């Protein structure tokens, strides 16, 4: 039990607690906060409140850094990576909750499982943009990408279903990701 208490104490006394480091983190965070806010809002189904939570947590993680070198090297990329990873976790939790809701729906024999437009305007716009980008893909590439995403099919399973090689599944996945990145450039 003595062991378990040590880490908790150390959390509050992390190296970024040095005034100089703290000031640097604060300065870098503040200078990117506006852009980060827009960025997160477009990647999260929730509203402003959820965005705030992600920003808070991002800031806390920055404060906890042992080594500020990476942050100094490229503050923007670093801060946005931290936020992206947090958004990812939040999105996974959201999907799990939504999964639960779906099940209850089915058991109640409700048929309405429409794509339920939810979330902020920014989020809806992102989804629409993503959908347009997906529809622009070549049919085979789109089919492969969507089977992998929607059905959680592994590459070998997709390959078997479409009678192609696993390597070409990989190539199509990569092609799709490249296209999505460039089409959603203004969000990323």
């Amino acid at each position, binding site marked *: 039990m003595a*062991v*378990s208490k*040590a*880490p*908790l104490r*150390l*959390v509050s006394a*992390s190296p970024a607690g040095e005034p100089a480091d703290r000031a640097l983190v604060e300065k870098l965070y503040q200078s990117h906060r506006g852009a980060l806010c827009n960025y997160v809002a477009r*990647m999260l*189904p929730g509203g402003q409140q959820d965005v705030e939570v992600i920003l808070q947590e991002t800031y806390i993680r*920055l404060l906890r850094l042992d080594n500020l070198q*990476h942050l100094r090297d*490229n503050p923007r*990329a670093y801060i*946005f*990576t931290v936020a*992206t990873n947090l958004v*990812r976790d939040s*999105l*996974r939790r959201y*999907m799990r909750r*939504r*999964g*639960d809701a*779906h*099940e209850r729906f*089915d*058991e109640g*024999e409700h048929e*309405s*499982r*429409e*794509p*339920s437009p939810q979330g902020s305007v920014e989020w809806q716009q*992102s989804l629409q943009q*993503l*959908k347009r980008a*997906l*529809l622009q893909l070549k*049919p085979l590439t*789109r*089919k492969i*990408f*969507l089977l992998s*995403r*929607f059905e*959680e099919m*592994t590459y070998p399973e997709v390959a078997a279903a479409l009678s192609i090689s*696993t390597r070409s*599944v*990989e*190539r199509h*996945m*990569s092609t799709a*990701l*490249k296209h999505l*990145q*460039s089409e*959603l*450039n203004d969000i990323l």
Partner: protein
Amino acid sequence: MNAEVVDEAIRMAAADWLARCDSGAMSAAEQRELDHWLEADARHRLAFAQCRQLGLMTNLLRDDPELNADLPPVRKVVRRGSYWRWFGAAAAMLMIALATVLVRQHYAIDYYQTNIGAQRVVHLDDGSTLMLNTDSRVGVRYSRDQRDLYLERGEAFFMVAKNRQRPFVVHVRGSEVRAVGTAFNVALRAGDVRVAVTQGIVEVKAEDAAGDHRQLARMLPGQGIDFAAANPQQNSGIAPVNLERVTAWQTSRIYFDNDRLEDAIAEYNRYTTRKVVLVGDALADERISGVFNIGDPEALVFALKQGFDARVTENDQRILVLGPR
């Protein structure tokens, strides 16, 4: 907007890496190369994370009719409600059952929980067994590729049925405890995660400050690690654990070995709504050893009186323990 930071070349490379990574066929050398690439530049990590993000966001378009239009029909029928009206009532019922099964496999988390003082054994579909300690909650979500469990509260012991194709992963506050055919204990106490291995090999992955999952420990039987849930980098390192002690709760016993009395009582109180309260600091730092039965406060009270000359006053709600006169 971000183009000045992450350029085209980095994005292409990130897409190639993620596609390779998701293929599940990456060699150890490739994995090292990927780690190296990610480590080299924050922009690489950002582009990689963004590719992941785009994939996840795509999942949320799962029910979009246009996107579903050219997917193979077998899967489409099972999943999509809009076609149901074309089937007879019986077929519709079958569809509902099928959809429920599929949805269950895809998403559903079954929750198991215990109240204070209760314990519970759960036999899972794959032959694994889950034992829940007092005041605990575990979610179970089995998908084809992975067995995911979520320790949300308390403590659980996992006996894992071996299946290399389907890793058994216990998620606890953003960290992962991974096993293939093994037995281990995971406890969540006041922001600390404690993992102890009784059998086989167990890997713990935790998030670093940047939110990436990295291996924190790989442990053998008799080893354990404690870490702060909010900051796994602050940890005890891999250390030997007393397995008898860690697993005592499974036989409704509680095991103290030279523990501070205050800590021991806090531990004891996890199992009872009638709390033992230590009044004043006089006894807090005393040490206590011994094995006690859960739900038998008399024995503990007796030990406190005998061992420390404690004065004890009891009522229905609590047991007050005072230092010697």
